[in-house]
């Protein structure tokens, strides 16, 4: 019963020892953890080999070189930020869409003849009169285009598509076109560029078209037009008037003409996009009879073939485009072919008037009764970002104007070769920058259309 005091004490001591040991162990463990924590925390302490000091990003000379650019950058940045903060980009798009909705399509582009762009609008008269929904198959449009010092044009057409639910279509046209400086270097393949001048041509045209659309890709159209053409004097850039420069040469049409055109056009188009085709082809065959009236001696036939094929080279990113353009004008009954209606060649082929694509040569560089032209272009995509695409193109244009068919000479072929960069958004060309070289030098183009 009476437990010895010594045993009690011994047990207490043992318990205390245990407690003490546990305490020590706990303290040791705590110290270890704390030490570990401290060590770990130390790894991220803001203790540096050298005190942190503010330093410029670039050296003194680099900053000095950059300074003028920096000065220009600031206002640009502010402008950009203002644009985005005030959604000016969106407002611009909205404005464009609203004008389209109202029936006004703004137009903008570049000609070969001026550094100034042309601008204008296509007015959808039915939409403007709020009648488009009521008459979906009818159309009535007027297009106004103006390029300072180069041209002014008003083209109007009124007609109907899918008449009676069939493929028939019909329209009437009224056009007025004043070209201020159409270049002219003489007729034939061997004219001199130094002999060039330009002329003013005013054309008033009234006509009618009727046709049938066999399928969404095939269309046949017949046309009848009356044209009144005035050739106006122009002496510019120190050069003489066309009548002075080409005095003594028989250039039909210099006095202007009243013409009646009868035409038949068969077209087929299977391209996947008109502006940025990567497959398909188009073919256009035109036959036209032109008869001069009111004293005009014009009387000729025009035959024209325009065809292009877009070959995908194992990928839509690589496209080889081949294009053939051939035209022959054949006078009949001792009639004439007015010089302004001859086949023309030269320029980027993205103009408002037709001068076929020969990019190393100036617009309208060659006039002739006939033209044969082969365009070969390899286009490949080099950059894609969302809906933006940049393509590079290597091209070769080989063509010749000549008189009668038998006058075609291989030695008279004119060659252009060059490179182009085409930037597009949702397959609409925004920018076409091209450079071409040929035996008359190098030419640069900035356009917002492709040649074909």
């Amino acid at each position, binding site marked *: 019963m009476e437990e010895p005091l010594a045993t009690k004490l011994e047990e207490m001591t043992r318990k205390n020892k245990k407690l003490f040991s546990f305490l020590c162990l706990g303290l040791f463990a705590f110290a270890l953890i704390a030490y570990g924590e401290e060590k770990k925390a130390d790894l*991220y302490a*803001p203790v540096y080999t050298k005190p942190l000091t503010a330093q410029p990003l670039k050296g003194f000379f680099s900053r000095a070189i950059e300074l003028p650019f920096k000065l220009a950058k600031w206002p640009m940045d502010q402008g950009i930020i203002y644009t985005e903060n005030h959604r000016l980009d969106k407002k611009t798009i909205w404005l464009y869409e609203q004008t389209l909705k109202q029936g006004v399509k703004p137009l903008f582009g570049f000609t070969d003849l001026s550094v100034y762009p042309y601008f204008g609008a296509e007015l959808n008269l039915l939409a403007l009169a709020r009648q488009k929904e009521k008459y979906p198959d009818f159309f009535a449009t007027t297009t106004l285009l103006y390029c300072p010092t180069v041209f002014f044009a008003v083209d109007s057409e009124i007609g109907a598509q899918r008449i009676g639910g069939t493929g028939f279509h019909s329209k009437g046209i009224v056009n007025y076109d004043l070209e201020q400086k159409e270049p002219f270097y003489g007729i034939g393949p061997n004219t001199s560029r130094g002999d060039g001048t330009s002329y003013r041509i005013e054309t008033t045209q009234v006509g009618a078209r009727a046709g049938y659309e066999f399928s969404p890709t095939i269309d046949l159209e017949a046309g009848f037009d009356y044209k009144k053409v005035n050739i106006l004097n122009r002496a510019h850039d120190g050069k003489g008037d066309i009548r002075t420069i080409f005095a003594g040469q028989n250039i039909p049409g210099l006095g202007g003409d009243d013409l009646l055109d009868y035409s038949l056009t068969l077209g087929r188009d299977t391209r996947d996009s008109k502006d940025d085709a990567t497959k398909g082809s188009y073919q256009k065959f035109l036959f036209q009879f032109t008869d001069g009236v009111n004293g005009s001696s014009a009387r000729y036939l025009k035959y024209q073939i325009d065809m292009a094929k877009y070959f995908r080279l194992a990928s839509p990113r690589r496209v080889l485009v081949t294009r053939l353009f051939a035209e022959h004008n054949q006078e009949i009954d001792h009639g004439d072919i007015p010089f302004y209606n001859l086949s023309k060649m030269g320029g980027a082929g993205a103009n408002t008037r037709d001068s076929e694509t020969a990019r190393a040569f100036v617009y309208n560089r060659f006039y002739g009764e006939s033209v044969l032209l082969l365009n070969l272009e390899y286009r490949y995509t080099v950059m*894609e970002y*969302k809906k933006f695409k940049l393509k590079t193109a290597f091209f070769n244009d080989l063509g010749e104007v000549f008189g009668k068919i038998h006058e075609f000479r291989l030695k008279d072929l004119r060659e252009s070769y060059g490179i182009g960069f085409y930037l597009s958004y949702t397959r609409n060309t925004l920018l076409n920058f091209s450079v071409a070289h040929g035996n008359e030098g190098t030419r640069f183009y900035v356009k917002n259309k492709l040649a074909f």
Partner: protein
Amino acid sequence: MSIQLKKTKQARQALALAILGIGVLGLAGTVAAGETVKFKESESSFYSDLFDQNIYNEGVNQLDLGRWGRKLSRKPLPSKNVNIFDEVPDSGFFTNRQGRERLSPEALEKGYQETSGPDLSKPLQVTAGEQRGIYPRFWVKDARGDEYLLEFDPQGNMELVTGSEIIASRLYYALGYTVPQFTILRIKPEQFQVAPGATTWEETGFKKALSQKRFEEYLMVLPQNAEGLYRASACKIMKGNYRGIFSFESRRKDDPADLVNHRDRREIRTLGIFASWLNHYDLRESDTLDISVEENGQTVLKHYLADFNGALGSTQEGPKEPMLGYEYIIDYGETSKSILALGLREKPWQKKWRLAGEKIQGSPAVGYFTNELFDPARYKTQFPYESFRLVTHADGLWAAKLLMSFSDEDIRAMVKAGQYSDAKNADTIAKTLIERRDLISRYWLSRANPLDGFSFSGWKLLFKDLAVENGFASQEGTVYLAQVMREGKKEKIAQTETKEPSVNIQPEWIPENGEAKILLRVRRASDKKTSPAVTVLLNAKGIQGIRHED
């Protein structure tokens, strides 16, 4: 004598008072200065970013003589905000979280949270809206008075944008970056109420009053789940004063705490690496936020990454387009190569897209997010930030270390935050992130010196070979080369080789009142090259400094 003593005493008292006065004035000045720090608002926008980075800087950087000097001499520019242990101390830009201590799966899934999300006890008051493309986003105020920005998924891609945004916010936060609170919100149409005076930026670019009818029109284009709920990512509008954005290049001169150019901040440079992990192609300055807040009586700036809907397989409009992450918006290098290759070069993203059959194979909720043909060295955000290009081996190692600190389970925990209705989608994303983490880490660990986790004990310098530990290299055939240098001198005093991740330190190598500099390199049987060096400064007390070679 006593007069003299008295005078001395008075002089001492005067001096003490003066010192005290100066001290009080200084203190008051400091406090006042702290209160009056005013941060300017630095503005940026997508277009200005595009102009600055893709056009201006790409050109002007060619005029930087120092840059050319570094290129020609192949001398990298070291990060300047690393401490003596080659780590990034905490700052307004970065807080060591997972790197310091592994976060629990719960903490990883939760991310940064001040609240559990918008309080739906009362209808959310829609205070503003914005239409971007066809889809809207809304600013709302909840019952607690907290404001949130709600972004939604596009039609046909339910969970894509919202899931990506939430997951990316969790990953950036765990890495250490400052992010706002993001939560998933599921909400019925009737839980919205247009607040009086609410306005909206229409897609037309005009700001208009937001009517209930217009709001309902906005809702009509948004996808709803089977229960009729809209799903949104709710970004809490942070309290504080908005001070614009922060640059990835230069420091803010109006911030006394911001001493290092951001280009030279390791955590900013490696954002490019983390963006590649998260497929965050639109990481950009104009998506950052600087907010000034009061902390301990001081006004300080917090630097936020704020917009993540372009992460993983998503973009704001829908699934990622195939070129994103592979090219800058204007990529001079890639474009030049393609021009010269005459169209015969198939870019990696084109090949990947072709192999995928030119369509997204996975779930609409995942978008376009795979690791096929993923190259950690070639990932590109949409703008070419110079800071991302300046990443050195040491920076890359630091990033890889951080990435490897996330276990597979950690990643799954963060992906769980995306709350995908189909577990397969979460699994696909987690798997892709795990694989990508390994690809990036393997890349950097094979280029940098992979030795880390140094400790000094029993005259042994112990370390970890991260490449071996993570299974990217074999211990067999690995040799660690150590060179001992006298402090401050180029004189080599000893050299040793070991196959174990430790080096025996001889006491005589360590000077009495100085440090020994030990350079460690790794040589592997599989690799002809020896790794860059890591320098360890050692004295009798232990490790005094670590620096991986850039």
